[in-house]
Each structure stands twice: as C-alpha cells, then as structure tokens.
C-alpha cells in the first residue's frame, strides 16, 4: 500500500461515514475487525477498562440495527458529520498488513433541529488503523480513534464515527 493508496483508503472510509453509508462502512471490518474508541486514556487495556465503543462482528451489526430502529433518539434529527483527515503515514508490516496513522478533525452538526441553536461540535482525534487485504479490496482489521478530549466532556455521538 503506497502513501497515496493509504490516503485514498482513509478518504473513502471518511466519505462512507459522512454520507451515512454505514452498511458499506461496516463491511470494511468483516467478522474480525475491531473498532475501538477509548475513553479517558488511549493506553488503557480495553479488556479491563470501559471504552466509548469497543465493538466487532455482531456488535457492529447491532449498531447498524440501532441506527435503523427508529428508537435512536440521540440521532433525531440525525447527527451529520464531516471528517477531515491529515498527517497520514503508512507502514507495511511483514505479514502484508499496513499500519496507517492519521489525524482527524471530525465536525458534528445536527441539522433541522427544533431548538435552532445546536452548537457545532469539533472533535480532533488521532487514529491508528491496521489495514489488511480482503480479497479484491482493502479492509480494516483494527481502527482506534482517540479523541483529544477523550478524558473531557464528550457530546452525544452518532453510532459510527
């Protein structure tokens, strides 16, 4: 995976999230991909400590189902996102997988809200990906998204971010 390919891969992933193509985004993870959003401390062991999200397989499907359930009140009206991805670096490991590092600034905004004064939320984050070849396409074996404010006040989040 070249630097260019790594960047294009992250841009495409961000596009799927921002356009709420969650089913396609979820497919990047296959059955074994881990999606981790830590709380408080990015170095904490997620088997011992709580996370904002620690999900794979069925748990990702459950999130998809929640988005479609009509009972995701925190997402009514829907939280729109915009990801800006930068500082990308990619390193191919011996097993052919690629570790990709990137910074992200994620904007959240709830359009069409009755309240009319919903603040724009700005969430800078660092991210680590383990990208693997899943047949025709690249897929995600591991995604860790660490918010700069992981130990501070967090706004309500969409199902996937």
């Amino acid at each position, binding site marked *: 995976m070249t630097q260019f390919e790594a960047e294009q891969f992250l841009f495409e992933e961000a596009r799927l999230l921002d356009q709420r193509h969650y089913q396609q985004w979820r497919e990047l993870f296959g059955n074994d991909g881990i999606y981790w*959003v830590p*709380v*408080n401390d990015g170095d*904490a062991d*997620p*088997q*011992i*400590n*709580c*996370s*904002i*999200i*620690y999900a794979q397989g069925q*748990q990702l499907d*459950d999130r998809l*189902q*929640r988005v479609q*359930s009509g*009972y*995701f*009140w*925190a997402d*009514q009206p829907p939280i729109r996102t915009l990801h800006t991805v930068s500082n990308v670096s990619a390193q191919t490991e011996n097993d052919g997988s690629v570790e990709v590092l990137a910074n992200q600034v994620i904007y959240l905004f709830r359009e069409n809200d*009755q*309240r009319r004064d919903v603040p724009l939320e700005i969430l800078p984050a660092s991210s680590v990906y383990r990208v693997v070849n899943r047949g025709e396409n690249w897929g995600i074996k591991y995604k860790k998204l660490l918010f700069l404010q992981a*130990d*501070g*006040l*967090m*706004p*309500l*989040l*969409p*199902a996937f*971010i």
Partner: protein
Amino acid sequence: MNRPSMGGLSQAEANHTQLYVDPEIFELELERVFSSTWVYVGHESEIPQPGDFKTTFIGRIPVVVTRDSAHQVNVLVNRCTHRGSTVCSEEQGNRQQFVCPYHAWTFNLDGELAGVGLPSGYNDGEIDHQALSLQRAANWDSYRGFIFATMSTNARSFEEHIRQAKKYIDYYCDLSPTGQITVGKTGIYKQKYRGNWKIQLEGSVEGYHVWHTHKSAIDVMARDVPLMKDYPRLPVKAYDLGFGHNIIENYTLNDDQVYQRWPASFIETLIEAHGKERAMNALRHRFNLVIFPNFALLEYHVRVIRPVTVDQTEVRTYHTSLVGAPEEMNQRRVREHEFFYGPAGFGGPDDYAVFDRIQQGYQASSAEWVLFNRGYKSEQVDDQGIRSGQHTQETQQRAPYYEYRKLMSISGKENWLADFLPGAGESQGAQE
C-alpha cells in the same frame, strides 16, 4: 393562570415547571440543598495512598478530597484563604502540599497553612496561620468507601441520613468477594446535558420509560436476557427510602434463579467469603439507588450529578470494578456497561437527548405542571413509613421532593394543582 407563590411550587403529585427554569430558584437550591445536606464527593478507592487527591464540587463550591499522611480523608474547599485562587488545578493526582500559584501560600494535605510567600512583608499579628487553613467541609463521613460531605453544621447525622440506604450499598459491595470495589478506576464517562439537574435525579430511577426510550437497547439485551422484553410487567417495586433517597428494583432473584444467573463457582466463592445470607442477597438484588441530591448507584456504575446552571447539568458515570472477582466477570461488567452508557452507548445518549428536549419543553411557561401522580393512589406505606409502588409507577420520582420541600422551605399545602388534577392530594395529602 395564576403565578403560584413559592408555597405551592412542589406538590406530592407534581412540580411546577418554575422549579426547573428559574435561575433564582436554582441559586436557592445551591444554598438550601447542596450547601445544607450531605453531598457525595468520592470513593475511598480514588484516593488510596497518602498524598492522593481528587477535586470535585459541593454544588458550585470547588473542593479537593485528600488523603493525608495519617491516612485520614479531608474534604477541603479549593480556595486559597488569601486572595481566592484554587490551590489545586487538577482533577486527580498525588501531592504532598498545595501551593497557590499567586503568592505561594502553601497548604498541607489536611488544609493547614504551612507557609506564605515572602513572609517578612507581614508584620506581627497580620497573619494567623491556624485561622487561615483551607476551609473544611463542616463534616464528612463514609460508608463502605462512599464519601459524603456537608458544608452545614446543622445537617442530620450521617448515620441517620444513610440508614435506609445501607442495605443496598451492602448488597452492591458484597458482590465483590473481598467486599471491596473500585470506583472510576476502570473508566469515567463525562457528559453534560442542557437541562436542570433534577431531571437526571428523577431519571436515575425511571422505570416507566425503559420499554420505549430504550427499545433499541432492549432488542439487543433480550437476546441474552429474554426477561427484558417483559420489563414493564416484572414483579418488582420501587421504594421511597426517606430523606429524598429512593430505589427501583431491576430484578430480585429467588435461589433457583440465582443459580441460573451466576456461575456456581462464583456463588461458592461469595458464600465462602461472606456467609450464605450476605452472599445470596448480593447475588439476588439488582437495583438503581438514589441518595439525594447528587448520587446514584447503578448495576455497573456510580453516577454523580452536578448542577452547573439552572439548565445545564454535568453527569459523570464512574464504572465500578469488583476487587477479587474473576477476571471474566469484571470484563463482562465492562462490556455490558459500555454497551448501554457513555456518549455512544445504546441507552445513555437517548436519555440525555430526552433530558435536553424536556428542558426545551419546559420553556412553555403556559403549561405549568410536571406530573408524578402515576400510582399515587395505590401507593403502599409500611409501618416504618416507607412508601412503595410498582416499578413503572412514580413513587421513586415523588420521593426526592418530600426532602426537597423541607430543605427549600416550600410548603406543599397550598394546592394550586387542584385545578389541574382533580382530586390532587386528597388520597394521602402531602405527607411532609
């Protein structure tokens, strides 16, 4: 409609919306509730070693909770006694002294003033070290590690205050084979909603909303626990424990169900550790407990409610871990907690979205009442004065306001509500 006087704002069956939107009432609450009664400030597991500290708030008053070199807990007001800067700038840490950033006034872990900057500029008699210690909470006490403090010398004794809640705290801690838990070591969610603090107080024991607000979570939970589908029909109750405290039962298992719910090896371990009765009680009872005004204990966490402004509230969710329990059990407690709570959980965010909308709705000054009359007429009162009702009724939402009215000096007798709810207050009156 008439604008009710303060006297009628809180009734047994309803509160006036003004209690949730009026900044002057909020200021009164800080003084008459948060500076008058016992307020939860932390758990001893957060400050195990000498020098450990955590900062928190009693209402709006910033405090630092320390463990000093004699292993004693201190609850100190985080304000330099000279010109007022906070003396501790962090949420938690370990330190031998607190040094004010302005003029180097230096305080020991017990609040004593150890020294000041450039002391020779003070003449004899200008500085009284003893009188200039950091202000202390008027009293603090703890039960099974949960530390409460009060700014008032007139608060009732802690023993009396906590008595009815003790057995539930025991059930909670006894699920640990060592009887010890940690609070917040395994994760803290830090969130805020745009609504009054009392909405979360009421919402921490809310049995009525679960089947609807949390349908997307229950659909998933019911895969493993089919019982959840029948939540509104479970034979469980909610109780008013007095002094504003209350609990809602989530489930209460008989012996057979305990053996279905928990691995036999874990049950044996607990019986060995605590004896059969204590162990079975810990395994049997699951509940949400509210200790008025800012503390709730839920299956996997301690919830701390902090009033910020009349329409802004911070809520912290401190995950609890059972010291000495099998690793897989604590791991399951992590996964199940984060499934529901936190900014991207399956349940908690929906509550905050609703709380936010409640505060928006409260802007309708034309609609006056917030109702808690569900199950009022069928409410039971036992010989100790403990009120109870079915868990989806509103005994537990009414509970805080008996204490609230006392502290706020609101008489519930002027019955403005009668125009709105025919028969309001007739069945039991406002039992003050």
